[in-house]
């Protein structure tokens, strides 16, 4: 409540002051990821060219989500441009909280945007945000360790194979762990990966009547496999490891394998940040008894709240930041490995990028293969891969993530954790009116 009032008050102040100036100040809320920080750096040039003033609010992912969601849901009107994800866009588009992108300026090649990404950022055929970068998930592995052990990573591995590799490559005495894997609880942390594991073991998160399906045999197999894998061949303290922790572990040469976001490839491939940049191999994310829904799709994208009075100016900035020209500029000035990936076909036809980044084509393949519908072995009522795109998902998956973390540390059994999570999910869905 406190936060909401504060947001409203500060929004009122922002409005009062904003209207006193000329109507060309854009307030932008964004996430503190490296690609966005680069965008902020180069936006000074945009200000110079257009005379538009940009006001930045750069926050970490969780805080950003809290600020932006409370602002847009209470019609605060603080921002002209917000950085949101593939999860928020269709939900907010449906609510009418975002201005649709029904037309682009002629020189902005909108058909160049990858169809799977474009579709994910649309509601009923209309785009509600424009992708700044997009990612899927893939398997990273150490070619040198695989060669030394006489192993070969297939292009499309299964989790069972990953488990066997982890067992053979685990060498705790030498400080190398068989696998690094997410353990930190949260819907965007451990659940981002475990939603995929659940899919390829033949499961789904909801039955057709919206009752929870995480207490099914498929999920039980999936999570039991994960707990066993992480505890036997993972690093100590795996329950505290999210994306960044695992990235550091792999970059320091402490893991033989890792399954995570494709954007990690650019970071791991940078010799300034990574000790293993010349020893990295890339494969698709694993499948198991079912061969779809094994890789996620995520996009950080830019949208305009319906309350913004500077919609036209905001549109121009968004077109600038997501254009081919912007990507080329970053490639030439900052290095091709660091461009915002995953959004445009032309990026993957650019010879400079393909030469600099051997992970480019596996990334493209993963993104193109990730579809939000028709991806589980059993029928499901929702849209989404590793999570359902419904407002109730965050509460449900945060709880599930916490329970699985409890099972990972041995505080409860996998069965108890999944049963408790299913009961919690059913309660939430009943309260929200999905289960009649």
């Amino acid at each position: 409540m406190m936060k909401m009032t504060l947001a409203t008050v500060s929004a009122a102040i922002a409005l009062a002051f904003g209207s006193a100036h000329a109507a060309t100040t854009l307030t932008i809320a964004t996430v503190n990821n490296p690609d966005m920080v680069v965008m902020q750096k180069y936006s000074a040039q945009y200000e110079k060219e257009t005379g538009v003033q940009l006001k930045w609010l750069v926050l970490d992912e969780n805080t950003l989500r809290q600020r932006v969601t409370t602002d847009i849901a209470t019609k605060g009107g603080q921002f002209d441009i917000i950085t949101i994800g593939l999860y928020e866009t269709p939900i907010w588009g449906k609510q009418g909280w975002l201005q649709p992108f029904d037309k682009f300026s002629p020189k902005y090649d909108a058909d160049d945007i990858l169809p799977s990404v474009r579709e994910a950022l649309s509601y009923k055929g209309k785009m509600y945000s424009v992708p700044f970068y997009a990612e899927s998930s893939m398997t990273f592995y150490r070619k040198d360790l695989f060669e030394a052990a006489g192993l070969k990573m297939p292009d499309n591995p299964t989790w069972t194979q990953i488990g066997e590799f982890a067992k053979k490559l685990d060498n705790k005495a030498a400080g190398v762990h068989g696998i690094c894997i997410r353990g930190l609880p949260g819907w965007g942390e451990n659940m981002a990966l475990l939603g995929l594991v659940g899919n390829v073991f033949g499961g789904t998160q909801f039955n057709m009547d919206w009752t929870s399906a995480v207490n099914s045999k498929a999920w039980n197999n999936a999570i039991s496999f994960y707990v066993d894998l992480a505890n036997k061949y993972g690093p100590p303290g795996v329950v505290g490891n999210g994306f960044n922790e695992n990235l550091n572990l792999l970059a320091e040469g402490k893991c033989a394998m890792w399954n995570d976001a494709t954007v990690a490839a650019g970071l791991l491939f940078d010799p300034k940040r990574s000790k293993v940049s010349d020893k990295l191999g890339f494969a698709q994310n694993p499948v198991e008894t079912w061969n779809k829904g094994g890789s996620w799709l995520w996009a950080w994208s830019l949208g305009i709240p319906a309350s913004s009075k500077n919609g036209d100016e905001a549109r121009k900035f968004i077109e600038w930041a997501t254009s081919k020209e912007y990507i080329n500029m970053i490639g030439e000035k900052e290095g091709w490995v660091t461009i915002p990936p995953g959004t445009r076909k032309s990026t993957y036809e650019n010879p400079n990028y393909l030469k600099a980044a051997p992970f480019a084509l596996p990334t493209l393949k993963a993104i193109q293969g990730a579809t939000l519908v028709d991806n589980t072995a059993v029928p499901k009522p929702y849209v989404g891969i590793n999570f359902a795109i419904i407002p109730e998902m965050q509460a449900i998956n945060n709880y599930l993530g916490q329970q699985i973390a409890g099972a990972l540390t041995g505080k409860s059994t996998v069965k108890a954790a999944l049963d408790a999570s299913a009961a919690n999910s059913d309660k939430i869905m009943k309260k929200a009116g999905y289960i009649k």
Partner: protein
Amino acid sequence: MSATVVNHSGARSQKRGMKVWPLLLPSVSVLLVWMIVPLVMTIWYSLQNYNLQSPPAQFGGLSNFEYLFTDPDIPIVVWNTLLLVFGPLLITVCLGMAFAVLYDGPFPGRGIARLLVITPFFVMPTVAALVWKNLFFHPVWGLLAWVEKLFGMQPIDWFSSHPMVAVIIIVSWIWTPFATLILLTAMQSLDREQIEAARLDGAKAVSRFIHVVFPHLKRPISVLVMLETIFFLSTYAEIYVTTMGGPGTATTNMPFYIFSRALQGFDVGLASAAGLFAILIANVVAYFFIKRMSEHL
């Protein structure tokens, strides 16, 4: 916290009531608005099924309360809330008393020592929690890990194996100076001649403390316990910075539970219902605990 108000009014003030009321009215009405409006809004929202991301809010009757009281986490959350009140309370009062007695006597460098023992109180809770998390408790580069390795022990990962103890230590570290400050001030009003007399009668240090010093400190301790209970009931920053309420729900107390439902799940109705429940807990604690303590005043 209305239970802390002790009614001393007798017949006299009742007679004057008629004349005093108009004068009190402005401040009382401001206070009422200040308190009643948010309370009524919270009650209103607690009866709505309102997820910020799927408006409009719909009247849900008592469904939020039904969810809340069948939530298997709630007993743990209430227990954690109480632990986070009484744990630091015990530690800060005991340590505060020890420091007060220690720093009361004359010794060289007393001014600086007193300053140093008060200092942690001026460190913001978020900063204090970060310092403890990264410089003391961290299993790789923390001071405690270094000490443990020195003795050939396996470093403890505090926030995953003893999360509650770790949070209690941080809260106690921040609030011990406050206890010291209040009790040290009280020590200075202790009549030196009483101590002298006790000493002449042959009382040893321990019995001097039990029979002279402690009875003198009883009243300031009551004040201290009252104030600290109010602050400890709303412990939040230390948890947010270190454990985010986990692992599982090991360090989720009532304020953090409300935060997570309101701003991580965006369920306004449930968070409001939990808020009302928190008011209930606070009043129960206030009634039994603070009332008893205030009897010493």
